[in-house]
């Protein structure tokens, strides 16, 4: 079954791609990564982040239109939150970005479990799948998140932070986090009053110590202003991603391996394992090291 999927993938069958993304999302067949064909050329991977309602999906819809006029193909990995209570999710991003069916556009909605950051698990593998399939541009839409959600930087080439007019006073921008990881900052909904002031505040914050090279743009999906300029700013950023494996991806794999070993040890419940774990639970620091050693065997 996996072989057939990989065959289809190499023949550029979209459904094979769609199924492989599902397998990746479920954490199955992560070994697929090793067998993926190398991309003919690296894709440009762009993250679009910003708080809920700032217009990420709508802007991505505009960007897709713009990129298609330049004959660039686009894959979108759109993340939305999953309920921590029911495990359910309403994935409503593509509704705002999809136009008529187009072979040059692939949009996939992904659910992100609560409290796990702004992007779906195994996003790294999914990015490599769509990259190997040959899309020129890969856009990652984060869950509407903000301060603190910075993991996406390791997985992408360019992080675009969207802000909107009237979002916070000037001290807001001094807080650490998302402003630091942004490669391009854009004040969206710039057809509304106050956009210029917000852009000025952000500009001033960035330049408070020394001149910052981070561009601060104003754009509006409603009036379709500034979309071409945004793409120019994205293109001007160097491709940052490491080659095959990022540290983030390797750490993720190690964590998965450790979790699998822990589960296996719990299932067999060898007496020395049980004792060690009991010691750990009582707060014995040496027991934690012993447990780690046991898992390493």
């Amino acid at each position, binding site marked *: 079954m996996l072989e057939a999927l990989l065959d289809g993938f190499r023949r550029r069958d*979209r459904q094979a791609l*769609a199924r492989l*993304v599902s397998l990746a*999302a479920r954490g*199955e067949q992560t070994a697929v990564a090793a067998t993926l064909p190398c991309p003919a050329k690296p894709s440009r991977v762009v993250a679009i982040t910003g708080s809920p309602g700032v217009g990420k999906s709508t802007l991505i819809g505009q960007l897709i239109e713009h990129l298609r006029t330049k004959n660039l193909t686009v894959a979108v990995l759109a993340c939305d939150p999953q309920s921590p209570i029911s495990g*359910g999710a*309403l994935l409503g991003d*593509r*509704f705002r970005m999809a136009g*008529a069916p187009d072979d040059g556009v692939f949009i996939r909605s992904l659910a992100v479990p609560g409290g796990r950051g702004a992007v779906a698990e195994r996003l790294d593998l999914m990015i490599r799948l769509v990259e190997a399939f040959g899309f020129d541009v890969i856009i990652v839409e984060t869950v509407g998140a903000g301060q603190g959600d910075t993991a996406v930087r390791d997985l992408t080439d360019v992080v675009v932070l969207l802000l909107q007019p009237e979002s916070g006073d000037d001290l807001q921008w001094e807080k650490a986090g998302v402003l630091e990881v942004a490669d391009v900052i854009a004040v969206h909904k710039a057809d509304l009053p106050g956009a210029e002031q917000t852009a000025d505040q952000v500009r001033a914050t960035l330049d408070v110590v020394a001149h910052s090279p981070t561009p601060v743009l104003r754009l509006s999906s409603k009036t379709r202003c500034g979309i071409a300029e945004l793409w120019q700013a994205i293109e001007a950023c160097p491709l940052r991603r490491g080659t095959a494996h990022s540290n983030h991806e390797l750490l993720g794999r190690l964590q998965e391996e450790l979790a699998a070993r822990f589960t296996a040890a719990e299932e067999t419940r060898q007496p020395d394992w049980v004792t060690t774990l009991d010691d750990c639970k009582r707060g014995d620091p040496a027991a934690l090291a012993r447990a780690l050693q046991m898992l390493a065997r």
Partner: protein
Amino acid sequence: MSSPVRIVLAKVGLDGHDRGIKVVARALRDSGLHVIYAGLWQTPEAVVRTVADEDAAWLGLSLLSGAHMTLVPRVLELLREAKLERVGVLVGGIIPEADIPKLLAMGVARVFGPGTSLDEIVQFLKARSEAGHA
């Protein structure tokens, strides 16, 4: 590891009434499904492309416009052309009694009319998904 069932919900054609489909979307979300909401004014072609790219097990179509005997067969035909017969198709909305057997004969898995309880839809999807569909 079991993973949540994925369902695309869409309205095809020019029907602009989306309250019903939003209520169903909420109920399915709360029952643990992953709902891909494709929204209003979709063409059959766009819906089938969405189902393919999203690798969904189910497609729910809501029609209140009376165009179901034109649009539903078209969607089913495109699904077959795309080799997506495995996708279960549900129809909801205003469907005259007499058309229900015709839709089922075409390959629709179930028609849910006005008055259907949300729980009935949820239970149907759960039972069919556990029975190995998707």
